């Protein structure tokens, strides 16, 4: 009997080692600079994120053609977190600890970012996050290259209030029920109050993810709009739900002159799945449109088409954000002479990149970019016609001035603050 017990224990020990060894063996030596790509290639988010993976592969390819970085070749390490948030955390850890990547470009949804955030902070990794988001965050280990709310939502609403935008007086805030629309609408409500709009003139409505039956809501919007004053819809509807929403708008005959819809999550890629003829005149606010008339943009589009080998593919704002983020990282690494995260982070501040948007983007010490805000009207060819733009780049605000709790917080990762959410600097200057 004892013999059998012993053999069982032996078997157990062998099994444990057997499980461990192959993973350990996978750790390789580093003669290249490894760039992690953490975008979902399957599941619900694949629809948006796959393009971003291709963008980073394109940038790496381009950099390698120019001779690499610090005399080494760049190597992409692509993983698929499969739109599964715990898997995002696992894959982030794998990229940093096992695959030894020097930088990671990734994430789309806020929840995926929140899921990997503790991993990056614990292991002191570096993440470039390319999507417009709700703000209220500034991590030492993340550079946010998408828009903060003050770089997208507020200028768009100001435009709709202006004479050119149609002088809207009543507002419908439509969104998917998650943190980005909730925050954006909270900020917008405070902003609208400050402009003298009463609560009775604001309708706020949330729908679940992937909501596909918009009949009732669109009818309600129509009713709300028929009560006299000029009405505009501010849409923070997420990805999938947009196509059925716009189809319903088109079918119910809501045209942009009557009720303009300005969207913060609808770009060229989303419109590619739609017949845009009934949507002409509806708006979107971004920091970049494919239709920007700038030499840098023409170059960017050509590079994309050459890489993806499909001249029909569009470019969009998060792709431009990755473009900027990657270029900045390359510049910072060259400046620092190393890929060490702490050195690169220091070198990132103040990095400038001539962006496809036609402006020069700058990385600020709150880890957010300065970017211009553009407002475009949907055209019948699926592109946007830019009808308004800011005079110059706007500094991204990590903490919104319109939310009392966050107004008092400052994000600044340089001396003397060295903090992402502090009311006073960590160090005093003598």
């Amino acid at each position, binding site marked *: 009997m004892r013999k059998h017990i012993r053999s069982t224990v032996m078997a157990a020990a062998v099994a444990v080692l057997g*499980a461990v060894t192959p993973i350990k063996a996978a750790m390789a030596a580093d003669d290249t600079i490894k760039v992690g790509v953490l975008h979902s290639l*399957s599941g619900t988010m694949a629809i948006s994120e796959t393009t971003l993976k291709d963008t980073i592969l394109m940038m790496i390819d381009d950099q390698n053609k120019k001779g690499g970085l610090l005399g080494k070749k760049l190597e992409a390490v692509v*993983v698929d977190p499969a739109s599964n*948030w715990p898997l995002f955390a696992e894959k982030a850890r794998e990229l940093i600890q*096992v695959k030894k990547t020097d930088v990671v470009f990734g994430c789309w949804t806020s929840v995926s970012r929140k899921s990997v955030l*503790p991993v990056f902070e614990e292991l002191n990794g570096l993440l470039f996050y390319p999507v417009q988001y709700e703000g209220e965050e500034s991590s030492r280990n993340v550079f946010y290259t998408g828009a903060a709310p003050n770089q997208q939502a507020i200028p768009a609403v100001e435009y709709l209030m202006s004479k050119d935008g149609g002088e809207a007086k009543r507002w419908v805030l439509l969104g998917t029920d998650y943190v980005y629309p909730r925050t954006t609408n909270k900020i917008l409500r405070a902003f609208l109050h400050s402009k003298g709009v009463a609560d009775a003139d604001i309708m706020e409505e949330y729908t679940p993810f992937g909501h596909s039956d918009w009949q009732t809501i669109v009818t309600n919007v129509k009713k709300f709009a028929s009560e006299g004053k000029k009405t505009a819809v501010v849409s923070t509807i997420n990805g999938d739900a947009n196509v059925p929403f716009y189809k319903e708008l088109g079918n119910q005959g809501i045209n942009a002159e009557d009720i303009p819809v300005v969207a913060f999550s609808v770009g060229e890629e989303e419109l590619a799945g739609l017949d845009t003829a009934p949507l002409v005149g509806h708006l979107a606010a971004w920091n970049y449109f494919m239709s920007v008339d700038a030499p840098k943009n023409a170059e960017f589009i050509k590079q994309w088409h050459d890489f993806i080998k499909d001249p029909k593919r569009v470019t969009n704002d998060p792709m431009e954000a990755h473009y900027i983020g990657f270029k900045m990282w390359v510049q910072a690494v060259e400046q620092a002479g190393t890929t060490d995260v702490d050195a690169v982070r220091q070198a990132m501040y103040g990095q400038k990149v001539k962006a496809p948007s036609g402006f020069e983007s700058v990385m600020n010490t709150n880890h957010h970019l300065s970017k211009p805000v553009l407002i475009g009207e949907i055209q019948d060819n699926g592109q946007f016609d830019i009808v308004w733009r800011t005079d110059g780049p706007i500094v991204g605000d990590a903490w919104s001035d319109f939310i009392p709790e966050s107004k008092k917080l400052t994000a600044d990762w340089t001396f003397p603050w060295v903090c992402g959410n502090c009311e006073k600097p960590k160090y005093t200057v003598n």
Partner: protein
Amino acid sequence: MRANPSFILSLPLGGKILLALMLGAALLVPLLNLLTPVDSFFHVPTYLVSLMGKYICYALLALSVDLVWGYCGILSLGHGAFFGLGGYAMGMYMMRQIGTRGVYGNADLPDFMVFLNWKELPWAWYGFDMFGFAMLMVVLVPGALAFLFGWFAFRSRVTGVYLSIITQAMTYALMLAFFRNDMGFGGNNGLTDFKDILGFDIQADGTRSVLFALSALALAGGYLLCAMIVRSKLGRILEAIRDAESRVRFLGYQVQYYKLFVFTFSAMLAGVAGALYVPQVGIINPTEFTPANSIEAVIWVAVGGRGTLYGAALGAVLVNYAKSYFTGALPEVWLFMLGGLFVLVTLLLPKGIVGLVNQFTSRTVRSPLRFLYAGKQP
């Protein structure tokens, strides 16, 4: 029914290996992680510790599914709900532990509530600042839901696919509910940014090792409990219900109470798995309630071998290891691999991997291993 040595020795070989593995891992892995130098051959990196901890939690979930499906014929497509509820109970405890360390520094309210302009803690959060209460809820909430659900369903003799589909409806309804920000459980972002548990830093290697060891012990304990249940007289009746429910009823057994007991127990086990899972992956969010997750848990059981308990655990670990490996190594085509695996296992291995191994061992290596098969094969 006591867990005396003879009971353990009467378990099937796979069960013994599972117990030995878990006890061994609970001891060895923390030691190898904490005490060996990083570059040593025997060093187990923290990455692996939390990864294996995650697998073990999945294994515990699979075990609970196998108990009801393999031994009582209840195909639950909603066990992810119990797993998720247990996870949320743990997550809520850890959220309360953050206290003033949140970005807005509010001692009572988690960040997302401050953010949604909530002025006070919703009632559902009361008591979750106490570890004991939270741990009680980890088993009580899933247990109560399973009891309520089962009480209705088994009494009115909902069986077969009807039962499967309404368990799916249950987890789907919970998913929708938890996605709503107004419910007060963090909506889509769920609960995250945990700092510590019982005062131990959740990111410290030591804490991770202890959590891993606890998971391993929980799996071993869960396996022992399940094995005791299925080998008792109660277990025989459960199997009888699985094979011919009407006949058991005609013999005078109150079928619904047996089913209710095993369903509730299994839900509690799933709740424990969820509670151990959350601190190790650092996030709990409503996607845990998606029907697809529950279906996957059923698939783990089928891959490992239904009605063997240890096979369920094996299936969970194998499938998830395959998932981890392929999503990293073959990110573009891993779904083909996974899908193909499910199809092939169903077609070629109706009794799962355990069935294959049993077939192999019983045919070729008659002695001495056969001697170890003191326990009956289901």
